[in-house]
C-alpha cells in the first residue's frame, strides 16, 4: 500500500486515489486544432521511467492535485494543490 499525500487530507493509502493523467498535458482548443494535435493531446504520453509529474484525484474528498513521484522506485517527492503555483514547480 503506497502512501500518497492529498494536499487537502494528508497522506492516505493508494487505493483512495485515482490516476488522472500526466501533468501539463495542455488541451488544444480553437478552430485550427489539427487531427494530429488533438490525437497527441488525447493519446500521446511521455510515460517517463523515473521522475514523473502526474495528476491524481483523491476519491474521498474530490481534490485533484499534482503528485511528483518516481515511477521506478515509487518514491513520492511532492504533492501540490492545483492553482497553488503548481506550474512553476519543476518535476
Amino acid at each position: 500500500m503506497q502512501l500518497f499525500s492529498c494536499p487537502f487530507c494528508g497522506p492516505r493509502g493508494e487505493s483512495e486515489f485515482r490516476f488522472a493523467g500526466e501533468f501539463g498535458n495542455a488541451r488544444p482548443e480553437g478552430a485550427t486544432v489539427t487531427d494530429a494535435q488533438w490525437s497527441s493531446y488525447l493519446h500521446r504520453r511521455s510515460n517517463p521511467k523515473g521522475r514523473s509529474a502526474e495528476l491524481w484525484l483523491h476519491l474521498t474528498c474530490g481534490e485533484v492535485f499534482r503528485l511528483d513521484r518516481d515511477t521506478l522506485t515509487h518514491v513520492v517527492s511532492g504533492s501540490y494543490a492545483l492553482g497553488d503555483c503548481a506550474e512553476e514547480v519543476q518535476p
Partner: protein
Amino acid sequence: MTAFRVEGAGRIDRARPLLFHFDDVEVRGFAGDTIASALLASGVNVVGRSFKYHRPRGVWGFGVEDPNSLVDIAAPVVGANAQATTTLAFDGMRVKSVNGRPNVARDRGRFIDLFARFMPAGFYYKTFMFPNWHLFEPSVRAMSGFGRVDADAELPRSAEQINRAVDVLVVGAGPAGLLAALRAAEAGRSVLLVEQGGTVGGSLLVRTAAIDGRDGVTWTAEMLQRLAERGATVMTRTTAFGVYDHGLVALNEKGQGGRPDRLWRIRPGHVVLATGAIERPLPFANNDLPGVRSAEAALAYLRHHGIATGRKVVVATNNGLAYETAEALAAAGVDVTLVDSRRDAGIVPKGYGLLTGRSVVAAEGRGEVAGVRLDDGSRLVADSVVVSGGFTPTVHLYCQARGKLVWDAVAAAFVPGGPLAGLSLAGAVTGAFDLAGVFASVGTALQPIGVAAGALPAVAAGQPYAIAAAWPKPGAEGRVFIDLQHDVTVKDVELAARENYTSVEHLKRYTALGMAGDQGKTSNLNGIALMAELTGRTIPEVGTTTYRPPFTPVPLSSLAGWRSGGLFNPPRRLVLENVHRDAGASLREYGGWLRPAFYGDGPEVEAVAREARRAREAVALFDGSPLGKIEVCGPEAAAFVDFVYYNAMATLPVGRCRYGLMLAESGVVFDDGVLMRLDANRFVVSCSSSHVAAVQAHLEAWRQDRFDRKRLFIHNATPALATLTLSGPQARPLLETLDLGLALDDAALPHMAFASGAFDGVPVRVSRVSFTGDRSYELVIGSDRAEALWTRLMAAGAAFGITPLGTEALMVLRAEKGYIVIGKDSDGLTLPVDLGVTAPLRRKKGEFIGRRSLVSPEAQRPDRKQLVGLVVEDGEAPLVTGAHGVETRDGAKRSIGYVTSSYVSPGLGRPIALGLIERGASRHGEVIDIQHQRTMRQARIAAPCAFDPAGERLNG
C-alpha cells in the same frame, strides 16, 4: 528406527503426551512437539516423496528452510502443504502424507526414479511432441503437485487483518533481534519484535552461550522480561513475509486453536532485520537419503525436543559451527564421528571421533542412511548423517526492499550491501556468525535511528566459523542433490550450463532450482556456485535471482481477510430495501445497487408484464433513489455545465429540465441524463445510477483543471436524497391527493419542468421527467422521509390501481420508447451522431468536452453503428439480446451490429428490440438477418421508438 528421545533433554512437556495419525501410523509426542519432531522421535524416517523422482525424503531441517516435509492436515483445521517442521502437533490431529500413493511409505510412484537418467532438467521440452502434448499431459498433471485440496472442507470464511504503526519493527528474535529491540524500547521507541518460530531466543536456545555470565536461555528470559517492562510487543509464530512499497511490512501470524492465520500490515518508522542465516547442505552423492539432515537442525531437535538424530552419527562439515552438534550428540550418548573437510581446524574433539581434511563423497543405504563413503575411499557406518555446508544469510526481506547484495568471500555468502533508508541489519544476516560479532552489529543497526547500543554484552568466544567453502563440483559422481524439493542435481546444473541456460534466471527456470515452495532457501547458493564454476565466472558475477514475496508461503485466507461473501465488494442498498422486501420484491444487483427486479410471486416474465401493463394503464411507483443527484453551484456553474454537456445548457431556464449527453474527450457518450436549473447559479446533474461516482470524479477533474475552484462547487447529494417516480395516466390524480402545496396542472408544471413542494412539512422536489414515455413525476425527498412518502403513495394509489415497478419492467417501458441505457444500448465507441443527436455540434458555439473528436475522420465515417429499433419479421419470439446482425460480403459472413435490448412489449403485444447497426439510421425499413448461436432470424430496421411515437402520453 534411528532418532530417539534422550531422557531428560529438551523443552517439551513430557507430562502432556499427545497422539496423532500420520496416514495410518500412530505417532506419539509431547506438547511442544512439531509434527516433524514427533515423526522423528517416533522413527518415521520417510515423511515425503520428492516432486519429480518420488524419492523418499526425511526431515532435513528444523524450521522454514526444510524442503522435504510437506504434509496435508485433515483435522482439526484443514490445510494443504503444511510444513511439518513449523506446524505444532496436537492430540487427535490427522496428518496425511503427500505425493505418494497410497502414502509416502509405500509409494507406487517410486518406480519413476528408475527412469531418472532419461528425465534430466527440462526433459519435457525435448519430448512429448509427437503426436501431441495433449496425450501426455494428463498423466504428467496427475503426477505433479504435493498436497490435495479437500473440496468438502468447511473452512472459516474470514480471517483477521490488522494494521499497526510502530517506531521500530525488529524481525527475528535471536540474540541480535532481542538486543536491538530492547535498546530501541529503552530509548522510548514503540517496538514490535516478531519471530517466526514458536520460541524467542533463536540460536541461544540451541547453542551454548555465556552472555554477561549467564547462559543463553537465562539471558533470553531476562531480555523478554525487560522488553515487557518497556512495553515492547513480542509476537512469536509470526513471519514477516514481505516488504512492500513505502515501507509497508506484511506479517502472517499463525493461527491457533482453530483460529485462522491473520495478516498484519505494519508501518514501521524503522525496520531492523535480524533474520539470521540458514544452513546449506553439503554436496555429495545421495545427500537426499532419509537420515541426512542439517547439523544445526540436529542440534535444535536435541535442545528443543530432546531428540537425538541417530545412534551412530556422522557429522560432516566445512566450518566450525557443526562441532557443537557433534559434542552435544556425543554427550547424549550417541556414537559420533565428525568429518571436517578442513585440514586443521585446531579443535580438540570432546567425546567424538574426528577426521580432518576428509569429505563425504556419498551417503550409502537403501531408502535410508546406512553409512558414508569418504574421499579417501574409506567407509563409515552411520544411521544418520548431519551436515553443514555453511550458512546463508537470510537476506530475502532486504532484497525485497531493493537492497543490493555483496559477496563476502570470508563468510562465503552474499551479505547485504549496507543499510537502506528506514532499514538496517543486525546479526547473522550481516554475515556475523559469532556472538560477539552479532552483538557488535546491533550497534551499527541502531545508529540510523539515533539509538545507542550502549555497552555490549560480554560473551565467551565460541568455535570460529572459519568456513572453507565446499561448493558442488562439476563431474561429481552419483546423484548429488542441490534442490531437494524440486529434485535438481549437479548433473541438471551441468546440463543447463552445457545448453547455455547460464543466466541465473535461466538456470532457475530451466532446472526449476529454487522454484518450489521453499524458494530454494537451502539450495540456491549451491546452484549458483556450481554454475559459476561451470562457466568460469565468479559467484557474484552469476548473481542471485530476484527475491519475491512471500518469504514463506502465506495462506490465501490471510490475504483475503474479511473480504468474503457480503463483505466482498458489498452491494449498495436502498433506504427502502425492507419496504421492497415486504412488498415481495425479488432483489438483484444493478450497477452495484441491490434493487427490486420485480415484485410478487410467479414467473419473472409474468410479473414484469403485469407491472409494465399496469404502468401503462394506471400508475406505477418506482424507487429510483440511486439516480445521480450531483449539485453544481457557484457563479461559474452555467459555464461549467455548458462545457461538460454536449447539449447547450447555459440557456436552460430556471425551473426547467433538459436532457443531455455527457461525452468523454474521445467524443464517446459517457453518460446521459437530465439537468435541472434550480437558480441562476445552481444546477442538479441527474446521471445514471451506476455512474454517479464516475461522473462525480469526471466533473471534479474538469472543475479543478479548468474553472475557478473558488467560484464553482460540486456536491453529490445522491446518498441523502431518495427519488420516487410516479408514472402513468393516473399519476397526476394520485399525486393530487397528497397535497404537496404546489400546482400540478400542465400549465404550471409542464413536461420538463420542476417545482418545489412539501410532504408533511418536508421539502420535496417534483420534476416532470419521464423514462417510461408516460406522464411521470419524479419526487425527490430526504432519504429519511422516503419510507413515509412511499407508504402514503402506495396507500393512496390503491384506489388508482397502483403497482410498484421493478427495474425489469422499467427496462421494458423505456425500450418501447427507444430510450437508451448508456453502456447497454451504447458501447465504448458510440458517438452522439450514432444516437441521432447532431444539433449541438452544429449549433453550439462554445467549447465542450469531446468536441474536437466529433469532427475526426472516424466520426465522419458513413458506416458507423447507429441506434435503431428492430421489428421482428418472423414470428412472436423476441430476439436474443447479444444476437448480431449479419450480412455476407465477398462470400464471407460479417457482423453489422447487434441487438442491445430485446423484450416482449406488453403494450404492443409483440417483441421489440433496440440495436446498434451499421448505417442503421439510413436503413429504416430494410430487413436484415439476425444470428444467435448459429440460428437465423429476420428483423426489420425501424426507428428506435416503437410506442407512442408522437409522445402524446407524456401529457396523457
